[in-house]
């Protein structure tokens, strides 16, 4: 079974089965070339940088989404495989007006890992987390993601960095 097929099988299975997969399987499923999407709420993720004289993304936009210390992302290729437009899909919530993308390979450069983690309202959901020991993403890791991301859905008048 090729990687894409295995990923689709995982996406169709209940989450309990996915979490029972080994870490090795998760790493194997999300390839380095996979683009990961992080949704942006401009009201709360954008700050004014007086050094730049411009509005830009805060590093906090790359912080853990929940108490499990994992940062939620959307897997772009999975969204496309189901015939959806990634830009439209991730901005469906009314408070989300932007999105950035970065490669899984970028994540792995800083001792972070990525996993498929479908949730009931988002079958294309994934997580970025500290590997091998779970913990918060530190500032250097957040800075690394900010420095290496690009817009999927740009917010007018807002710089990435």
């Amino acid at each position, binding site marked *: 079974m090729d990687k894409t097929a295995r990923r689709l099988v995982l996406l169709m299975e209940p989450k309990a089965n996915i979490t029972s997969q080994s870490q090795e399987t998760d790493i194997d499923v999300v390839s380095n070339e996979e683009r990961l999407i992080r949704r942006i709420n401009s*009201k709360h993720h954008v700050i004014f940088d007086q050094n730049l004289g411009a509005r830009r993304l805060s590093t906090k*936009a790359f912080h853990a989404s929940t108490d499990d210390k994992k940062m939620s992302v959307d897997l772009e290729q999975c969204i496309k495989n189901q015939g959806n437009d990634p830009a439209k899909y991730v901005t469906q919530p009314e408070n989300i007006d932007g999105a950035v993308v970065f490669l899984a390979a970028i994540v792995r450069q800083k001792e972070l890992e990525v996993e498929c983690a479908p949730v009931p309202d988002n079958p294309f959901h994934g997580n970025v987390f500290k590997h091998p020991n779970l913990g918060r993403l530190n500032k250097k890791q957040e800075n690394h993601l900010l420095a290496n991301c690009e817009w999927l859905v740009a917010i007018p008048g807002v710089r990435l960095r």
Partner: protein
Amino acid sequence: MYSTATEFKFSDAKDHGALVRNSTFKSIGLPEALNRAERSTQREQNLQSGHEVYSSNFNKVYYRSRRRYGSGVVSLVDFDRGWKERLKNRFEELRNLEDGWDGYKGVAITGEIEAFTISLLSEIYDPRVAPPSLVPGGDGSLQIEWHVNDCDLEIDVLSPEDVFAYMINHGSGAEEEINIGENRRELSVWIRRLVA
């Protein structure tokens, strides 16, 4: 509009955690224009986000958090008008964030994070520095940020006992990250570096 005293200051105690636990109320000034209906809505929202309204008196509302750190009395009285307005308005927004505000499972900032942040700011406050940006995390944490005088200073409040500060001077390239619990004085030094 604001209470007349900051009734706990972390500089007054060796164990700031114990001080927060022992304090009794948390008060947050509300705009005079806030009518009863709005107060009711505010109360519901705060109950959902972990605050419990203890009592209200004129324009001052007391909250008691149901979370581990209990509650406390904090106010914005130590700040100048510009800081007060910015902090008051921003905390109202952050307190009322809806679930899923970040497009995932994000929640509003917690009561103890808000109380701790105000107290920390009152301790390191320097009127020569503009008020900071306050950026929430989806997990209820809060980041305090300044980007001025060729420096970036970010204080990430994950919980009252888990606070990290990061500073980079773009001119020299110097980069530092410290745990605030052990380096509170260092933070005041960093704040002074923001003064042009």
